[in-house]
């Protein structure tokens, strides 16, 4: 994640760059939003407006797509995003205890961000590494076979 703050000119630069990379046709909307979400950390209102202008789509259509897909966020996220798999295979191998401990350690619930903007906690559906469940993903790092007691140490790696 590159930009934490949302200066309009910075966002404009990112949007222009991404639209140029993918082309401004309608069927590139999701790859474009994905890339911007990755670079900025989420999709601020300004982005939706700019993308709708460049792709010549009504803003309502862009918003309807941005809010449909789980990996796109229209809300700001913390510096580090923790994704916890809440699907059945992770659940039956002890996922519930890990989830409860996670919420305890961070003092936030699913979908929330800590007050100091350090952590955002979201639940995700199956990540496809069920052989090593329970699974926690922090930013791009994947942790498998996680037990509740390992959490403080794992979290301590991130500043």
């Amino acid at each position, binding site marked *: 994640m590159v930009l934490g703050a949302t200066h309009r000119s910075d966002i404009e630069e990112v949007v222009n760059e991404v639209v140029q990379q993918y082309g401004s*046709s*309608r*069927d*590139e*909307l*999701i*790859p474009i*939003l*994905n890339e911007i979400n990755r670079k900025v950390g989420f999709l601020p209102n300004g982005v939706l407006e700019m993308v709708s202008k460049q792709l010549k789509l009504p803003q309502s*259509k862009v918003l*309807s*797509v941005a809010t*449909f*897909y*789980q*990996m*796109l966020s229209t809300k700001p996220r913390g510096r580090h995003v923790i994704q916890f798999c*809440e*699907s*059945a*295979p*992770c*659940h*039956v*191998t002890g996922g519930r*205890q890990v989830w*409860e401990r996670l919420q305890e350690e961070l003092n936030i619930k699913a979908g929330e961000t800590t007050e100091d903007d350090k952590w955002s906690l979201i639940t*995700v*559906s*199956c*990540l*496809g*590494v*069920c*052989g*090593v*469940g329970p699974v926690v993903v922090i930013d*791009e790092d*994947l942790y*498998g076979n996680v037990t509740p007691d390992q959490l403080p140490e794992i979290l301590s790696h991130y500043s």
Partner: protein
Amino acid sequence: MPFFRSHVLISVDPECLKRGAHDVMDALQDELVQQGLNEEVQILETSRIGDPIHFGPDLMVYPEGVHYANLSVDDIPFLVEEHFLKGRVVNKFVAQESIIADEELGMPKAKEIRIVLKNCGKIDPNNIEEYIAEDGYMALGRVLTELSPEDVINEVLSSGLRGRGGAGFPTGKKWSFARASASTPKYVICNADEGDPGAFMNRRVLESDPHAVVEGMIIAAYAIGSSQGYVYCRAEYPLAVKTLNIAIQQAREFGFLGKNIMGTDFSFDLEVRMGAGAFVCGEETALMSSIEGKRGEPRPRPPFPAVRGLFMQPSNINNVETYAVVPQIMLRGPEWYASMGTEKSKGTKTFALAGDVKNTGLIEVPLGITLREIIFDVGGGIKDNKGFKAIQTGGPMGGMIPTKLLDLPIDYESLASAGSIMGSGGLIVMDDETCMVDIARFFMDFTQDESCGKCVPCRVGTRRILEILNRICEGNGRDGDIELLEKLCYEIKRDSLCGLGQGAPNPVETALKYFREEFEAHIYEKRCPAKVCRNLITYEVITDACTGCTVCARNCPVTAISGERRQPHLIDPDVCIRCGICMQVCNFNAIHII
């Protein structure tokens, strides 16, 4: 001409040399001479085998195909004695792949036949030449030079291959529909949006053998008359996306993709499209909507994709596994494929074993094998030797199968008759400490969350079912709830627009069918037999076993435990939050759940 019984290929990649590969090689030669084996075992230098930085110095021993890594001069005498004299593989020297790859796909277990998984872990997915060395793209060569599109479709038809995405529609038939549609352009699409919790077979194939999928798609394109294809891969699989893109680029460089493939007048190219985190995009029409840049909402069928699909053009959409097996069918012949499996369900299928089973991971078995064989022979039985309770097949649209049906063969028809489906191949094993009401609720929570919202039966119906299940698990079940659940399940299945809604009630329905007594216990006795549902269990101190050590009281986060030193303690059920910490820290097994 000297005849060697064994060949050792040692990597002299610069990074391996830096780590002492030449010394290892010299030590090996000396030891072989000393043991009198140098006329039987030949040492050859080769380029890199495994990643030299992680594995060097490393070597391969043939004919066994064992990869030994991180060797030092001191390891050599033991290695020679064990491997070459006694004929035993030395496990501690065997190269360990990444923890995930190692844990999920080991050596084939009993009863496995690896066709789709044949190259996984054996070739470098980022090197097309290794795929070619394993007969890669030979099938395409045969197809383009010897067969007409109709011939291809006939061979796929007679192989009996059925779509491996879940519905099991005969693949040859599907291709023939797209071929029959007159309008162009036509599209070939690969559904790599493997979203079923517990299913990761497609991910492994994409990451480890992407060219099998690419080759299969090119053959399909030739058969139906398409020149453009898409692989729609979920964004949660970044490595698969990266590997696919490299594979496509290499295929282009070798002339297997692009214009005039292999010098014929057939042209076809491929593009990867990523999802963005929506399970419903695994549904074929929702997937196509997503490629078009829209919300992933399904469309009514007819018209079917073969007639009007992507961008309203005829499209053929198949699962990763379906395409991956096509090259082998074209190379080895449809009769070979049809010789495996059952009468109506031919061939092999990959499955992902997850949950409370000893050997979790990927397997590939011929269809027709029984559930019992999969769980106990291939899977090694239940973890921690607990009892088996149920197995969920087919993902969140599938059903739970109890002990009494364990001898059911795994094929499309048998699973449907039990109330479940084959699905993509995720198998979740549950032990006797699983509450079936809780699990049904769990799956419904997932499908309700992933429902696209377009049609009322699914959007509202799944929410209503979830509300009822939540109430039951919290201890507020009412008389009439079971009947209401059954009615809702029936109506949602009948009236939903797409497979998500049509299948969402299956876990609940099968749980009611096979484990009705658990629901009744929750509702009428306010009791959870499996001792899982928080509001229906009580943690209690066994007074005879309690020594009064106070460890539990000191660890209780809500100070619900009282008691004097050396006196039996007491847990206040009104304060207790059922976190289970007291039971975990008790050294005397003096706390149990009732």
